């Protein structure tokens, strides 16, 4: 991996007119009922205008070259029967946390805990949006809008337009326990949207967990604003029914001395795409975004895309992108990651690594790492590797009597360890590790 300091031309993708399916967008919108919104009304109207301007993505758009947007462009979600396995993930199940349950993207008050938690103010969007004013009004759709440059993200704008529910969390102090958003499926043909807004006030800290099964098709967004010295730990585990197609977005604004840590675990999904857009706007802040992905094409076609854009606009900030994908039986992984260092963002420390472990020759990984640097006193590095299991290590483990399948599990966990290390809390990390191990054990030899 080489330290690189390069100046690139602006690479804003150009959407050509002929590829822009204008009618497709109309058809897409016609199939939806668009909420008017209360405090979000103006933001929704703006987002709709942005969306009409952008159109839906086409495969020739630079950031949609490796993931076919078709399932997300289609007016209707392909129905997906509700299986037997509708229970919540065991992950974080025994933690003391505040539970908020969403069924097909709609808040379920009865299944949720009472939202009283010292240090935080929690509302749900569907209720709050009956009012004309709310603290989240400054943020709803605002971070998404600023995240549209220089790369267009039409589905994020669509989310701002369509989402009726989500959680709005204002953190004023550090609560005693994490907030846990749990998604459940309610109907076979659900096309689900949710939009969370989080503001962490100066010096406050929040851990937000998000797990569960989304609908047949899902589109989630989180906008998070970290004020000076704020800390935000965001840990998500996407437990999709395999045939699910889903998009998720995180838009973060990180002010001075604030710390963002995001970790995503994904184990299933026909087509899944996670977009992370992080703007570091204050000095001495850091943002770490990491993911562990396990794809087994034998369960069904598997395609997983992580698209990340981190902008440094302040001095002495650190960013890390750690993305690890384990792919087998024809699974496909995509990573598109960028570090943009703006003029004046001196002493930036940017690091990006994307790696795939291919367990067979049919699986593939496509990576597009990018650096764009306009400051001269920075340290940025990026690396991307695609490899097979380390035969030497495999033999070492087997020579100690560890059976072949078990040895592979060890090496897969070993491969993922750097990404998991981004989960700060020991207990949470151990739980995720156990979950991974259970999944790998279940899929061993298949």
């Amino acid at each position, binding site marked *: 991996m080489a330290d690189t300091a390069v100046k690139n031309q602006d690479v804003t993708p150009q959407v050509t007119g002929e590829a822009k399916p204008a009618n497709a967008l109309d058809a897409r919108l016609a199939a939806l009922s668009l909420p008017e919104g209360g405090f979000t009304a103006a933001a929704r109207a703006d987002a709709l205008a942005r969306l009409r301007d952008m159109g839906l993505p086409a495969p020739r758009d630079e950031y949609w070259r490796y993931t076919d947007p078709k399932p997300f462009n289609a007016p209707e979600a392909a129905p997906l029967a509700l299986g037997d396995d509708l229970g919540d993930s065991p992950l974080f199940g025994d933690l003391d946390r505040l539970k908020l349950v969403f069924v097909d993207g709609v808040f379920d008050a009865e299944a949720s805990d009472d939202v009283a938690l010292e240090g935080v103010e929690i509302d749900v969007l569907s209720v709050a949006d009956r009012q004309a004013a709310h603290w989240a009004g400054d943020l709803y759709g605002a971070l998404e809008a600023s995240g549209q440059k220089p790369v267009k993200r039409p589905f994020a704008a669509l989310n701002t337009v369509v989402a009726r529910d989500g959680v709005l969390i204002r953190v004023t102090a550090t609560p005693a326990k994490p907030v846990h958003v749990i998604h459940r499926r309610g109907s076979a043909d659900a096309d689900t949207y949710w939009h969370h807004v989080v503001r962490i006030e100066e010096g406050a800290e929040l851990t937000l967990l998000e797990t569960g099964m989304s609908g047949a098709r899902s589109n989630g967004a989180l906008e998070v604003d970290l004020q000076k010295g704020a800390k935000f730990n965001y840990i998500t585990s996407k437990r999709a029914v395999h045939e699910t197609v889903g998009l998720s977005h995180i838009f973060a604004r990180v002010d001075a001395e604030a710390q963002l840590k995001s970790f995503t675990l994904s184990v299933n999904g026909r087509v899944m795409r996670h977009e992370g857009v992080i703007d570091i706007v204050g000095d001495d802040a850091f943002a770490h975004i990491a993911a562990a992905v396990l794809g087994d094409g034998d369960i069904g076609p598997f395609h997983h895309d992580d698209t990340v854009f981190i902008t440094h606009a302040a001095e002495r900030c650190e960013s890390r992108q750690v993305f690890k994908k384990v792919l087998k039986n024809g699974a496909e992984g995509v990573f598109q990651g960028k570090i943009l260092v703006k003029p004046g963002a001196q002493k930036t420390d940017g690091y990006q690594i994307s790696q795939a472990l291919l367990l067979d020759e049919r699986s593939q990984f496509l990576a597009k790492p990018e650096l764009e640097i306009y400051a001269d006193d920075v340290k940025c590095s990026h690396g991307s590797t695609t490899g097979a299991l*380390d035969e030497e290590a495999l033999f*070492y483990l087997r020579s100690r009597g560890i059976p072949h399948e*078990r040895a592979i599990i060890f090496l897969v*966990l*070993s491969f993922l*360890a750097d990404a*998991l290390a981004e989960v700060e809390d020991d207990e949470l990390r151990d739980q995720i590790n156990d979950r991974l191990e259970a999944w790998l054990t279940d899929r061993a030899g298949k």
Partner: protein
Amino acid sequence: MLKIDNLHVKLEDEDKQILKGLSLEVPAGQVHAIMGPNGSGKSTLSYVLSGRDGYEVTDGGASLNGDDLLEMEPEERAAAGLFLAFQYPVEIPGVGNMTFLRTAVNAQRKARGEEELSSGEFLKKVRAKAAELKIDADMLKRPVNVGFSGGEKKRNEILQMAMLEPRMCIMDETDSGLDVDAMRLVSDGVNALRSPDRSFLVITHYQRLLNHIQPDVVHIMSNGRIVKTGGPELALQVEEEGYGDLLTGAQ
């Protein structure tokens, strides 16, 4: 215990013969040393016996207590009582040394139809063995061999040997990269494991290690075969005269 008969081995991908009719027998309770110049096939022998990929046996065989070793998977050989102490122990980031050891111990016990060790039993045992080898608690907690010094890696190999209690131990240049103190620790660890029903095959370049681990028999290997077999005095002869005269005399 270990019986190797007219073993011929070539590299799988290349037309290169490495072992050319090697025969050797290590009875229970004995320590045999194999010495020989670079390229004589010593490490290949250890890898073929423990089941590493990349080699093809073209003739001959090897058995452990009458069971055909070459038919078994590496983990089956381990469960049958074979252990290879690696010349270059492998680092495995993200997998704790304790987890690794416990998995290995219990996998072998399970394969042999024995009851697995409970956490308590395992901890008690590993702490006692680690203390003997001056392996501190921190080393046990760290990922397997990651950030270990050369000496620590070799001590960790001996710890694994002590925990797994194999019947046949092959040590592949365990002395390489060890300072005097580390060599003494490793040797003490090995000597503590010597017993009437456990055998050792110690592969080394130098006689030095054999001052600490006294062999019963010394074999000289050259060009894929055992060319001379004798008592401990053979190792001293190598140390004094080098391999040159010995090999000339043997051919």
